[in-house]
């Protein structure tokens, strides 16, 4: 295109040629740029793509909204609240000093503390956790300003129990990452926590999240509703606390059940430890409260008629050589079944058991649900133990009649009494009423389940009449409630001491009762384990029963049996 012409001649220069040279040299630039573009965009595309990806896309912290736990009426017992933690990503911070001052003022922490954390950490550190919404608002407002650059506000959840310690032993605990650790929290952890996949989100240079359709959360967390009625729970806890103050027991349990449905309305225990409800985990020798089981068995199996009398052997019955049972609380030679219960006669109950026979008694024990889990569905529920009947000696048989040599849990005992109360049917006890998912699905878990008929309706009726006399004239007088027929049984059991014998000073006092006796609405079990102030079931536990039952009856508006009081 351009012909060569000599250039050197002075005064003879070629403008056109020189321009072409300049053009040629300048054309190196687009050539180089093209080359570099090809290099960057084709050969190093992958590398820079992943770099950009790392710079721009962040994985958002797992954002769990844990479901709540509510009582049967929907009152909140445990709920997760969104708080925030404030962290600092060092590389985004623009004005270090101003940011520190602002954070120190807003969060009310010393500035030096932040500075120390800054120096110790490499890229990121937490300034504060569990920031309440009001403070969070203040922080969030500066997020788009220079002041807020580098501030990372990540949601955190705090488990709040509005009713304080109430029912905490059943609810259990959940940690700050919202994982249930014990109790209901642990058992229903799966439905209460949503399925969380880490969300990939685009962020601007200042850290704002750019919403994307893929960011849409699909929350499907469940709220768990217990059969516990927070009011009943309150009454139970209040009564129990009063008793604890008075008698100073090592442990105390109050359990309220609806005998007709098996729902547990209240389960209070002392001392309160999250996720460890003594009502389900405590095992003990029931003592006298077990006598009604033996009597009910005797009547139902036809071994003894309801009006049978039992010979007292002069109130000192030597069952076998060296094993003597004493009855010190009465002077009678014969006791009817009613009197056995009223006076809580060990000899009577032992003789009844002997009359029934090991095999029948054992089968009734099993039928009442002793010696096996009730499937109330609580973590760590105990089984209790009933030794197989073929290993029983005569003494074993006799003592089992009045509640020694067996170990039961409070939930087993109350469920058995509920069977007596509701006409002879063993109901499945329920603690969880329903699970309600956010998408509207309701999983009902507390439909009344009849496990089996244990005793006939007739026996049930008789037993209630017998137990009513216990409260009216027997050991349970202090459980009387004005206007209502109360049926119940006291229990005072010596505990197996560490040396192997039954020590006098270590004992469990209990009372289990039902009200109203004619058509029970509540079955209430009170257990005080080893009270420091010496007490019997009649003096220690029966008043607690009354204290729980009275407000419950008033609350539910249960019609009184007698109206002609005054």
């Amino acid at each position: 295109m351009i012909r060569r012409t000599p250039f050197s001649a002075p005064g003879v220069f070629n403008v056109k040629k020189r321009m072409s040279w300049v053009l040629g040299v300048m054309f190196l630039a687009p050539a180089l740029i093209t080359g570099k573009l090809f290099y960057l965009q084709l050969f190093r595309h992958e590398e820079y793509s992943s770099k950009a990806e790392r710079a721009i896309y962040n994985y958002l912290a797992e954002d769990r909204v844990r479901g709540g736990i509510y009582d049967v009426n929907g009152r909140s017992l445990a709920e997760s609240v969104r708080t925030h933690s404030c962290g600092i990503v060092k590389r985004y911070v623009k004005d270090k000093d101003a940011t520190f001052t602002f954070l120190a003022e807003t969060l009310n922490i010393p500035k030096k503390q932040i500075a120390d954390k800054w120096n110790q950490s490499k890229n990121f550190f937490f300034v504060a956790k569990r920031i309440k919404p009001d403070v969070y608002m203040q922080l969030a407002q500066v997020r788009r300003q220079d002041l807020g650059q580098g501030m990372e506000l990540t949601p955190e959840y705090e488990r709040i129990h509005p009713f304080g310690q109430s029912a905490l032993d059943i609810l259990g605990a959940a940690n700050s990452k919202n994982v249930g650790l014990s109790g209901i929290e642990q058992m229903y952890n799966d439905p209460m926590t949503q399925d969380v996949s880490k969300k990939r989100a685009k962020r601007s240079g200042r850290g704002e999240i750019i919403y994307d359709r893929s960011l849409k959360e699909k929350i499907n967390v469940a709220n768990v509703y217990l059969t516990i009625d927070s009011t009943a729970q309150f009454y139970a806890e209040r009564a129990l606390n009063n008793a604890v103050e008075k008698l100073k027991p090592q442990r105390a349990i109050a359990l309220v059940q609806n005998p007709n449905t098996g729902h547990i309305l209240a389960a209070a225990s002392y001392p309160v430890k999250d996720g460890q409800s003594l009502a389900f985990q405590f095992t003990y020798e029931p003592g006298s409260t077990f006598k009604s089981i033996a009597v009910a068995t005797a009547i139902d199996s036809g071994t003894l008629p309801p009006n049978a009398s039992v010979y007292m052997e002069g109130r000192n019955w030597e069952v076998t050589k060296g094993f003597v049972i004493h009855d010190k609380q009465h002077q009678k030679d014969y006791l009817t079944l009613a009197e056995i219960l009223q006076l809580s006669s060990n000899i009577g109950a032992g003789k009844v058991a002997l009359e029934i026979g090991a095999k029948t008694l054992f089968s009734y024990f099993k039928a009442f649900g002793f010696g096996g889990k009730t499937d109330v569905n609580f973590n760590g529920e105990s089984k209790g133990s009933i030794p197989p009947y073929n290993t029983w000696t005569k003494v074993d048989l006799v003592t089992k009649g009045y509640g020694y040599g067996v170990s039961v849990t409070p939930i087993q005992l109350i469920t058995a009494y509920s069977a007596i109360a509701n006409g002879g049917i063993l109901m499945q006890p329920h603690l969880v009423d329903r699970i309600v998912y956010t998408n509207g699905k309701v999983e009902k878990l507390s439909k009344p389940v009849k496990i089996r008929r244990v005793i006939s309706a007739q026996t049930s009726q008789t037993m209630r009449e017998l137990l009513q006399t216990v409260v009216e004239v027997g050991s349970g007088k202090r459980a009387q409630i004005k206007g209502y027929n109360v049926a119940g049984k006291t229990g005072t059991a010596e505990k197996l001491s560490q040396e192997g014998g039954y020590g006098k000073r270590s004992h469990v006092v209990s009372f289990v009762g039902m009200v109203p006796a004619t058509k029970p609405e509540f079955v209430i079990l009170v257990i005080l384990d080893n009270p420091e102030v010496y007490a019997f079931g009649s003096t220690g536990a029966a008043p607690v029963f009354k204290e729980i039952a009275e407000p419950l009856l008033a609350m539910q508006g249960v019609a009184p049996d007698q109206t002609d009081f005054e």
Partner: protein
Amino acid sequence: MSLFSANTKNPRRRPVLARSTAFRPSRPRQEGWQPLKLDSTLAFISLAFVLIGLLFTYSASAFETSAYVKRQVVFDLVGIGAALFLSQTFTRILQFKIFRPMNLMYLTWVLLIIVLFTRTQAHTHRWIDLGFIKLQPSEIAKVTLVIYLADYLEKTAGKLAKNWQLLIPPMGVGGITLFLILLEKDLGTPLLMGGVFFCMLFVAGARLLHLGVPVLVAGLGGVIALLAEPYRRARVLSFLHMGGSAEETISYQVRQSFMAVGSGGWLGKGLGNSELKMQYLPAAHTDFIFSVMCEEAGLFVLIVVFGFAWLLYRGIALARIAKTTFNSLVIFGLTLTICSQAFFNMAMAIGLLPTKGIALPFFSYGGSSVVMTLVMMGIVLNVVAVDHTQNNLRSDVTHYKNRNK
């Protein structure tokens, strides 16, 4: 649009860089004012660049605020207006005594000195704030220096090679101008202007030996200037350490720019989809707009690169066939100014050259840059058109035109 000549319809006769209408007899002069016919290639490239530039200014800045693109539209309109006005009138305006090239240089110097006393912005003072627009005198200096030099060389063409003393006046004027710009702590602009300056002298016939000495002196001065300012030294050092393992020493801007270009891939992320523009890439709508373009358009951005190459080719081709030294050198100088700036900016964005505050003509946001670029194009268009209308062949034109035959 009779404003643009359709010289592409001309049958191809011989392989020349640009087909000229110079030897066709001009139409008989009509009564009244007739618009000059503008070169359609240059006009088309300018228009296309303005439009595409507007698109990418919008894309690069609108995530943050739409204020930039609105102002850019105004700047573009003002620039196009100025270009159209100058494309018809530039030669005539220059005939006024008051607009003698040397006077223009005085004006430029005054502005350059005024700017030294303005408030500093981002450690430099390059702008005179007029409220609506921030006037950047160095942009004006680019034009005036080319006009001055072309005018000077018009008088001395052909004698430069013999008489090196003729180089002293332009060297003095150029030196003062570049030094004043240097005082603004701006190194990129004087470097580019100096390049254009020497190219023009070289094209006009100066001997390389004569040009070499001042280049050497300026080069030494440049090195000293580089090492004097710590921030500049850091930048240069970071550039020199670039590549391979020492990626961390590349400046933050260039790293982000690489990320933008590299992650764009050969197809790009799609118009408007740039991710690095979201507060990652600094000056995404001004100096580093090319990175955003690469990220969004992928290798299609080569259209723009080749567009500038085409502009340069066309400009130099027209300069080659211009009939006067002045016309030739004005076309040559201004085209070269625009294109060298463009290539410098692109090379900077993809790490071929160290980061200097050089805007991408037509594309980068900025009133002075856009308006002055369009003013340059207007002047070029005017000179080209005027040159085409001249058929009164002057002796010197005949002289060097016939040399090639």
